[in-house]
């Protein structure tokens, strides 16, 4: 039953959500804040160790390959990964918006695109890991020299694999969540409920994964 609200709404007086959101969305937001501190702690640890080390490898030397095109192409492959993730975020927004409009067909189309984007990103990451591993890089082993030509500690690869691994794990769970959302949409679960709020929460999670990548991309590949 739709009913007009008084112009002056007292949000905090109890009996309703002070933020005008349902509890699930609130929980998702605060979970993401919590997760931001997990990633924050990883990235800050990376920064701390980097500040504590005399010299550090040059990412342009490390990440310079592109599948099929060979070496000497720094930043190219990671740009591709970044754009894949941005585009998949866009399709996710479109899916959420379609959900608000109760447009099931559009929800399905955009969710499928998002899932494809996620899988594409994971594949890129798998290729990059395999390539680096082939070059001798792994946890506890770093074949790359520092930018000034001195021998590097293993912490460059240690942090790289730990943090991108943790991010990749988030992407993977995001893809799984999106597949579940897709199945639920196809089964008309949300149509019956009368709203697509679940997709909105899955969307928040997915954007967060994109958000973390913005930071990982910058601190590992650019600076």
């Amino acid at each position, binding site marked *: 039953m739709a009913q007009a*609200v008084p112009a002056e709404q007292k949000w905090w007086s109890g009996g309703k959500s002070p*933020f005008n959101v349902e509890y699930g969305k609130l929980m998702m937001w605060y979970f993401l*804040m919590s997760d931001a501190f997990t990633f*924050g702690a990883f990235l800050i640890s990376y*920064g701390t160790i980097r500040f504590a080390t005399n010299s550090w490898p040059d990412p342009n030397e490390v990440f310079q390959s592109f599948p099929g095109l060979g070496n000497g192409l720094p930043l190219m492959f990671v740009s591709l990964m970044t754009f894949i993730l941005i585009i998949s975020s866009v399709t996710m927004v479109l899916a959420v918006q379609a959900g608000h409009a109760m447009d099931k067909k559009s929800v399905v189309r955009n969710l499928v695109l998002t899932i494809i984007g996620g899988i594409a990103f994971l594949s890129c990451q798998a290729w990059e890991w395999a390539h680096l591993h082939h*070059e001798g890089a792994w946890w506890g082993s770093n074949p790359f020299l520092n930018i000034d030509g001195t021998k590097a500690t293993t912490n460059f690869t240690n942090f790289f694999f730990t943090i991108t691994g943790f991010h990749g794990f988030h992407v993977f769970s995001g893809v799984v969540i999106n597949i579940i959302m897709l199945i639920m949409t196809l089964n008309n679960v949300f149509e019956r409920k009368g709203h697509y709020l679940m997709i909105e929460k899955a969307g928040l999670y997915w*954007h967060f994964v994109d958000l973390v990548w913005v*930071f990982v991309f910058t601190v590992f590949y*650019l600076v």
Partner: protein
Amino acid sequence: MHQDDNTEITFHHEYDREASKKEVIKITVILSVITLVELALGFWMYLSHGNLGSFMITLIKGVILILMLAKAFYIVAYFMHLKHELKNMIMTIVVPLLLFVWFIIAFLYEGNSYKNLKNTYDPYHKEQSEIKVEKKEQGSKEHDPQAH
């Protein structure tokens, strides 16, 4: 009897789908442009082959970090829709993030101090970290971190 008992009452937002779509396109363009600028800066640093002064490098890296924050802002504000939530909710999410300020300052300061102390009081460490390795062992699969 349960009608008003424990259900959460929220007020429905009316969406203008067309306007939202336009907004998404706008933000996508902004994010792409920022990323391209970041990449351009990255290439600039790469192609200059160390001809840029250390001040210039720091400056470029600083700009990249600011652009990173800008991207984060656009993603959170528009894709995650936070900008359209009630102001109080925005505050509950943004204010705790301020804890990162001291978190970052203290940790990085500590890391830097650790390096300086070690260089000062462990001359062997400093000496070792200044020895240049003759040849790059690119692509050597059997790499033993102990080998030196």
